[in-house]
């Protein structure tokens, strides 16, 4: 199975949408890097319509300089859902920055979310276990920060870091800086999370060096009994790439299992 790529225009900005499979829609909000592709998610498209929209300012989507807060992405996706005809509740998965966007989407567009999965989401203020300063990590040190699995790391660091790759990363970090330079969390999210009504799965790599796994407890505390957690030993920030167990866990959560 492969992704089909198409372009759509949302609020005047061209964005790329990857789709695979057929059935009930599952929308995936990616994190702050879209250059590696998302093939690791394809198993989720077995019985579903998997939709991976690329955020403005990332990967193959154009920039939208008006987006300077995470909430702007929520507005962007509310519009895009209308355009894609996603009127019934969908399953929503968000990773890292995408987890932050997904949680806000579930807060403000709760009627559109059936089940919510947050994989090492950004956005909560956890002063005892703060996130890393992603902006200060040079391109050649990035893989070893993101990934704990040595097998995956060896694959990621095999090629040379080209000018194109550095420029692409600088552009994505610029887009990220527009929304989170001042702080990589929103103090209000802590209070707002009680508005989430969808059952929620929190996934985390136990060796995550970008957002420490200890933050998971804070999410569960704020979300209450509708939340469940799964953590993975030997796994860093790129949970879905680093272990097939993460996809399997999402699969069983979406099928209603524990």
């Amino acid at each position, binding site marked *: 199975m492969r992704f089909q790529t198409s372009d759509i225009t949302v609020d005047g900005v061209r964005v790329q949408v990857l789709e695979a499979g057929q059935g009930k829609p599952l929308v995936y909000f990616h994190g702050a890097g879209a250059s590696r592709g998302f093939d690791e998610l394809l198993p989720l498209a077995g019985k579903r319509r998997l939709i991976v929209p690329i955020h403005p300012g990332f990967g193959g989507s154009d920039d939208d300089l008006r987006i300077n807060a995470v909430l702007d992405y929520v507005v962007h996706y509310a519009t895009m859902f209308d355009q894609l005809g996603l009127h019934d509740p969908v399953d929503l998965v968000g990773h890292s920055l995408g987890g932050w966007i997904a949680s806000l989407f579930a807060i403000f567009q709760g009627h559109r979310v059936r089940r919510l999965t947050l994989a090492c989401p950004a956005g909560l203020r956890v002063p005892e276990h703060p996130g890393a300063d992603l902006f200060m990590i040079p391109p050649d040190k990035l893989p070893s920060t993101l990934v704990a699995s040595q097998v995956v790391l060896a694959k990621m660091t095999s090629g040379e870091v080209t000018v194109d790759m550095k420029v692409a990363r600088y552009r994505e970090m610029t887009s*990220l*800086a527009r929304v989170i*330079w001042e702080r990589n969390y929103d103090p209000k999210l802590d209070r707002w999370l009680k508005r989430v009504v969808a059952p929620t799965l929190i996934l985390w790599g136990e060796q995550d060096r970008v957002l420490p796994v200890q933050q998971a407890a804070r999410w569960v505390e704020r979300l209450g009994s509708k939340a469940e957690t799964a953590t993975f030993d030997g796994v860093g920030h790129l949970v879905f790439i680093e272990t097939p167990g993460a996809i399997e866990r999402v699969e069983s959560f979406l099928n209603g299992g524990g």
Partner: protein
Amino acid sequence: MSVLDRLQFYLMHFMPYPDVVPGRPQGQWVDIPNAHFDPVKGHKLYKEYLDELALGDELGFDALVVNEHHSTFYSLMPSCSIVAGALIARTRRAKICVFGTPITLTYPHRLAEEYAMLDVMSGGRLECAFPLGTGMEYWVNPLNPSNARERFRESMEVLMQAWTQPGPTRFDGEFYHYKYLNPFPLPYQKPHPKIYIVGSGTEDTVQYAAEKGFGYSQVFTPVAAQLKSFENYRNTTMKHGHTPDSESIIISCIPYVAETEAKAVEEARDHILFYFKNLLRTSDQMNTPPGYLPVERLRKRLEAGVFQSSEITWEALTSVYRTVLGTPDQVAERIAFWCEQAQSSKIVVHLHAGDMPHWKAVKNITLFAEEVIPRLRRKLSPALKAAE
């Protein structure tokens, strides 16, 4: 009329803290452990540095220049206004130049107030330059690099409105909102002190300065790149109906004057190298926080290999920057050449460099004032000589 007929000498100081921390390839910025700061040493340095600048006033420099950097051994001036205030009290005639606080690091109305205070306190001796701030400043201040240029321009709008429109006025921007923009006091000079924009060669900064009728000064960048910016500046200035003059472009240099060329090299070379090797050194990551450069400009820099940090040699350094070590005649000759080449009558001289001790700075300032400036003032351009 030649630029040499109205040369003005701007004595500038970086006020470095020279006890650098070794073994730091990323340089002395941002995450430099500040436990290495010794306040007793700092006290001694402030005294020496202020003495050096005050000596410049006594010996006839036209202006004294200070600037601002944060969280770095490069500079003991996280607030150039404070140093300027101290200089005003110790000097009588030289212009005081704050070159300056990045306006985005503070509230624009507050900078309008502070600079107005300095202008009134000094009886109209203030000049100000507005830099975007180095990339390093963004890591240590609550300031987003991804919209730095937009915020900078809006801040300048606030400042100009505050200085030129009778207050209170109203301002509704993207970044700032003022219901009562009403600074007090207002500048001594009318309509306001001379303003320059400090750039690093980014084309749209050059154009911005020219469009607004501000002066332009370029920080440490190769001379050839500076000359290109100056030409661009002059052309844009004319396009917008302003007359470009030699006083709107400032060039800078690092001279050291001694009895012989050999002595000048012996006394100064290592201190200047120290400045480039230790104090100016930074990492690519710190120097270019995300969004600080437009993406395409970053690509150009990467392709040109600007970021491949190699060991700095004296030969390489002197081929791209304005550095001269020698006798008064040699230094005067070189400075005359640079001013004519850039068509600039204002030259910033860095007479203290790196870890230079006080006595050498005093010697250099004294010899420059007593031996070099008079030579240059007497010097006429070849064109005028021919006319005589």
